[in-house]
C-alpha cells in the first residue's frame, strides 16, 4: 500500500465520517463542526490530486468564510434541534429516502464499475505539476473563462444585494403583511395544539 493510497483512505474515511456526523448530529453546532471536518478532508484530497490552489481556497473560503457564516447564523438564531422538539410530519418519507439513496449508491457504483476507464494522465507527474500552478488557473480564468468569471461576479453582486434587501425588508416593506401574520399565528396555534410551546425568538 503506497503512502498516497494510505493517505487517501484515511482522508476519505474522515470525509465520510464528517458527512455522516453532520447528518446524524442533533445539535446544529455539532453538525457544522462535522461539516468543517469534512471540508478539511476534502481539502487534503485536493492536495492529493495535485491541486494546491484549490486546497488553499477550499480552506479559506469553505472552511473559513462559509463555515463561519453558518456558525454565525446558528448562533444568531439560537441553537435548536428541531428533530427533538417536534414530531416529524413526514416520517413516512424517511424509509423511502433511505431506499432511494441506497439505490443511487448502487447506481453510482454500477456506473463506476461499468465505465470503460479512459486513458489516464494521472501518472504524468510532469503535466500534473504544470497544471498545479495557480498562475495557470488565473490565466485560464481570465482568458477562456472570462465571461463566466464576469457572470460569477454578477452573481455575487446579486447575492450581496439580495442579502441586504432581505435584511432590510422590515424597513423597506414595513411590518408583516396580513397574510404573513396569519401564517405565523396559524403555525403557532398548530404548535400549541400539538402540545409544544411556541418558540420565542432569541
Amino acid at each position, binding site marked *: 500500500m503506497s503512502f498516497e493510497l494510505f493517505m487517501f483512505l484515511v482522508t476519505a474515511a474522515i470525509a465520510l465520517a464528517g458527512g455522516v456526523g453532520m447528518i446524524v448530529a442533533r445539535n446544529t453546532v455539532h453538525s457544522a463542526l462535522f461539516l468543517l471536518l469534512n471540508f478539511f478532508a*476534502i481539502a487534503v484530497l485536493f492536495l492529493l490530486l495535485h491541486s494546491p490552489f484549490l486546497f488553499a481556497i477550499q480552506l479559506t473560503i469553505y472552511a473559513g468564510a462559509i463555515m463561519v457564516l453558518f456558525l454565525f447564523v446558528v448562533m444568531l*438564531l439560537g441553537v435548536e434541534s428541531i428533530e427533538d422538539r417536534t414530531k416529524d410530519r413526514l416520517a413516512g418519507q424517511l424509509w423511502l429516502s433511505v431506499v432511494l439513496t441506497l439505490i443511487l449508491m448502487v447506481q453510482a457504483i454500477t456506473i463506476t464499475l461499468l465505465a470503460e476507464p479512459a486513458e*489516464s*494522465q494521472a501518472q504524468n507527474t510532469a503535466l500534473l505539476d504544470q497544471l498545479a500552478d495557480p498562475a495557470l488557473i488565473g490565466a485560464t480564468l481570465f482568458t477562456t473563462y472570462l465571461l463566466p468569471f464576469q457572470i460569477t461576479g454578477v452573481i455575487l453582486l446579486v447575492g450581496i444585494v439580495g442579502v441586504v434587501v432581505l435584511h432590510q425588508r422590515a424597513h423597506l416593506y414595513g411590518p408583516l403583511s396580513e397574510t404573513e401574520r396569519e401564517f405565523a399565528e396559524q403555525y403557532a396555534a398548530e404548535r400549541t395544539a400539538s402540545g409544544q410551546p411556541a418558540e420565542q425568538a432569541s
Partner: protein
Amino acid sequence: MVETSYYILLSASLFTLGILGVLVRRNAIVVFMSVELMLNAANLAFVAFARQQGNIDGQVLVFFVITVAAAEVAVGLALLVTIFRNKQTADVDAISQLHG
C-alpha cells in the same frame, strides 16, 4: 497513484449523504450544510476527472462552484434568517403554505 474511480466512488458517497441530509433533516441550516456537502462532492469529482484528463478546466470549474456556493449560502442564510423572524423556527416543514 490512486485510481480515479476511488475518488468518484467517494464523491458519489458524499453526494448521496448530502441528498440524504436534505431529505431527512428538517433543520434548514443542516439542509443547507447538506447542500454544501453535495457541492463539495461534485468538486471532488471535478478535480479527480481533471487529473485524469490532465487539463485545467476541472479546477477552474471548482473555483466557480465555490464562488457560487458562497453566494448561495449568503442568500440562503439571509432567507433563513428572514423566515425565522416570521416563523420563529428554522424547521423547513413549517414553510408548507404552498400545498395544493
